[in-house]
């Protein structure tokens, strides 16, 4: 043991920094909404997951305040021991109703669901079948299992069928197909009907990560509703931290699936319940999605308009089918430069570069928001036009 200090992390950090792999934290001054102040600069927000503009909704704020008054600031314990309050239980039941499943439970975050539950669903003698572009939390969950793992090309149903066919020749106890519902880099939607049909045909189960589908697909109810597969998808995970404007992960399915999940997932058993006001906010969020259906409609109207207009400027939006609309610029350096120049023009957007996406597919990821006006979108488009010409992109 030669290393006695942490000094070498300075070198490791600098190495990461040189490669461009470090984050500069941009600080929001005030709530997350379409118009924000970021590091002192007024910007239009294109990088948040707050699709329905609920994070600062009066009902959600009110729910939080009232819950703090009633339950205090924290849960005080792990979920499993003494941290689950009646407001949490109310939330579990409401999720099951909302998602039209038998049962549901919450976790600290969506990440904690994927990383904690997936390893419990399959072990030696099972096989997990995963789309190559699944979210990092799924990849981590899959890595932690002792099951066999097979990867199919992104949304490639021929390849998925091949894996299922090969798997059915072996004596696997169970096979589970795992997919993101909406893929967060390209904004495309999983072919959930085909995935389900194939899985069903070969006797496999299905697991879907609905993080970017909640509040967006199926009139806000998510991917299950969108494809009319609410009861058929065996494992549904999601998060309140995106379209719902709240916080925390969820897991839904049949009664025993859910019971089994929270009784075995270490990220649930050995970690504190999220604060009671978070549960109250999440409850309020689902109510708003149901009571104000115009929000989901506005989100999609914005997405359709923006996609059409940015394409007519000459930008490639790739495979986008949702309010995640990339503007593909190619080279990583150019994407980063464009994001920086956009910030100077008062648009806050995220550049996604290699190796998160292919070397020639670096992009700006534009995330639509139901709170954006036509004027906001036109402002953004004008900036794209100006900078796109300046950087020779269009």
């Amino acid at each position: 043991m030669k290393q006695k200090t942490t000094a070498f992390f300075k070198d490791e950090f600098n190495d990461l920094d040189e490669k461009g792999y470090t984050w500069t934290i941009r600080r929001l001054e005030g709530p997350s909404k379409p118009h924000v102040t970021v590091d002192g600069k007024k910007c239009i927000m294109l990088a948040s997951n707050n699709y329905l503009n609920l994070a600062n909704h009066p009902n959600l704020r009110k729910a939080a305040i009232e819950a703090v008054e009633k339950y205090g600031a924290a849960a005080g314990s792990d979920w499993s021991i003494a941290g689950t309050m009646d407001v949490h239980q109310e939330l579990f039941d409401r999720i099951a109703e909302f998602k039209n499943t038998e049962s549901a439970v919450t976790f600290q975050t969506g990440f904690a669901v994927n990383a904690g539950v997936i390893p419990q669903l399959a072990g030696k003698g099972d096989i997990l079948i995963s789309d190559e572009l699944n979210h990092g939390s799924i990849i981590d969950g899959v890595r932690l299992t002792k099951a066999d793992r097979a990867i199919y090309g992104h949304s490639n149903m021929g390849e998925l069928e091949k894996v299922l066919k090969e798997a059915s020749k072996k004596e696997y106890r169970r096979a589970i197909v795992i997919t993101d519902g909406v893929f967060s880099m390209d904004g495309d939607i999983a072919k959930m009907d085909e995935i389900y049909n194939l899985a069903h045909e070969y006797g496999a189960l299905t697991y879907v990560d609905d993080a970017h589908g909640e509040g967006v697909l199926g009139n806000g109810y998510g991917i299950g509703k969108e494809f009319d597969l609410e009861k058929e998808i065996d494992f549904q995970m999601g998060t309140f931290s995106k379209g719902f404007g709240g916080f925390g992960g969820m897991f839904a399915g049949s009664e025993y699936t859910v019971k089994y999940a929270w009784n075995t997932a270490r990220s649930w058993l050995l970690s504190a319940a999220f604060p009671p006001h978070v549960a109250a906010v999440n409850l309020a969020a689902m109510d708003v999605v149901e009571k104000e259906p115009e929000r989901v409609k506005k989100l999609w109207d914005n997405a359709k308009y923006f996609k059409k207009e940015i394409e007519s400027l000459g930008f490639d939006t790739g495979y986008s089918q949702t309010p995640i609309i990339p503007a593909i610029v190619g080279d990583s350096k150019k994407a980063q430069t464009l994001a920086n120049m956009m910030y100077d023009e008062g648009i806050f957007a995220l550049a996604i570069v290699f190796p998160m996406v292919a070397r020639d597919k670096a992009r700006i990821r534009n995330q639509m928001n139901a709170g954006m006006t036509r004027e906001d979108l036109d402002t953004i488009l004008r900036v794209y036009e100006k900078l796109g010409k300046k950087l020779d992109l269009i």
Partner: protein
Amino acid sequence: MKIGFIVNPIAGMGGRVGLKGTDGVYDEAVNLGAQPISSEKALIAIKTLIDDYPEVLDDIKWISCAGSMGKNSLINAGINEEKIHVAYASDSFDAGKTSTKDTVKACKHFVDEDVDLLVFCGGDGTARDIVSMVKKNVPILGIPSGVKMHSGVFAVTAHAAGPMIARFVKGELRTGDAEIMDLDETLYRKGSWKVRLYDTAIAINEPTYVQVGKASFAQINDDEIKNDITDHIEEELDNHSDTLYLFGSGGTIDYIANKLSIENTILGIDAIYKKKNIGKDVNEQQLLTLMDSYDNIKVILSPIGAQGFIFGRGNLQLSPKIIRKIGIDNIIVVSTPSKLKATPVLRVDTGDEALDKMFVDYEMMLVVIGYRMSRVVHITSI
């Protein structure tokens, strides 16, 4: 960084006039009207490097050969003469007739000069000559310019070689095993066109990334992945102790065998039973005899060469008869992800059309890319 740079000035000349190579048939090629093409390909590669990656030029010291064996192409592309050190000159250029001997001698000088990368312009024959000298001591990159380019050391095009050089200089690429393939001359003289595995070399390739932070990625080196694949294979062997395993050829399989302390022939087929080598470098007949004594037989293969062949290149011992006997379900294909990236489809050329068609109809195979980890890869014939 020192880059050895050599052009085989006569490479590729035979192709346009219908010869299967230029090795040993230079005069015939010239009589048939062949024109030199390799210096032009070398020029394209180096010009791309200069135009698109000017920032790396200062970091490169070129170790090359006089005249048409290297220096001319560098100068014509616009490399500053001060950056070029001529390490070898041959008397045979004037006639335009350099030979295998020249390539080998030049490479000896490159090794003595301790080059970090050897860039050559030529085909499979040139690659073979180079590797016979440099072995696995220097990574090599081929600018494709030959008639035959089955080896796994070539850039996809002459243009693509430029960025690969630049990215290697910047430290963005890694090194990994590659096979050196060439026409089997003995068989060719008997009238059959078969490509054989001659050697393994070190090539440069795109590293495999794993996401560690949201935007931070770690490159995993190929050995780490090969260790994972080894663990997978070891478990396979342990779980099926009544099965005879045939270990295919190439660097990946050899790595696995070495890790498991199983004797193995890198360029041949070995028969393994209960983790012991019971048949070294066996030929078809020996294989058939051996296979008669075992009920369960599986074969472990890794795609070979630039085109991703699993049968028909480098393992002709695995004849159609043997492949049929083993059965498609008992074929285990392993590969590092970086190698798969370079050869995104698997191919077969068993010489038996019906058998090839069976693989083509199979469409895809699951390739083992880690411990209990596989991915779908398409399969086709030539």
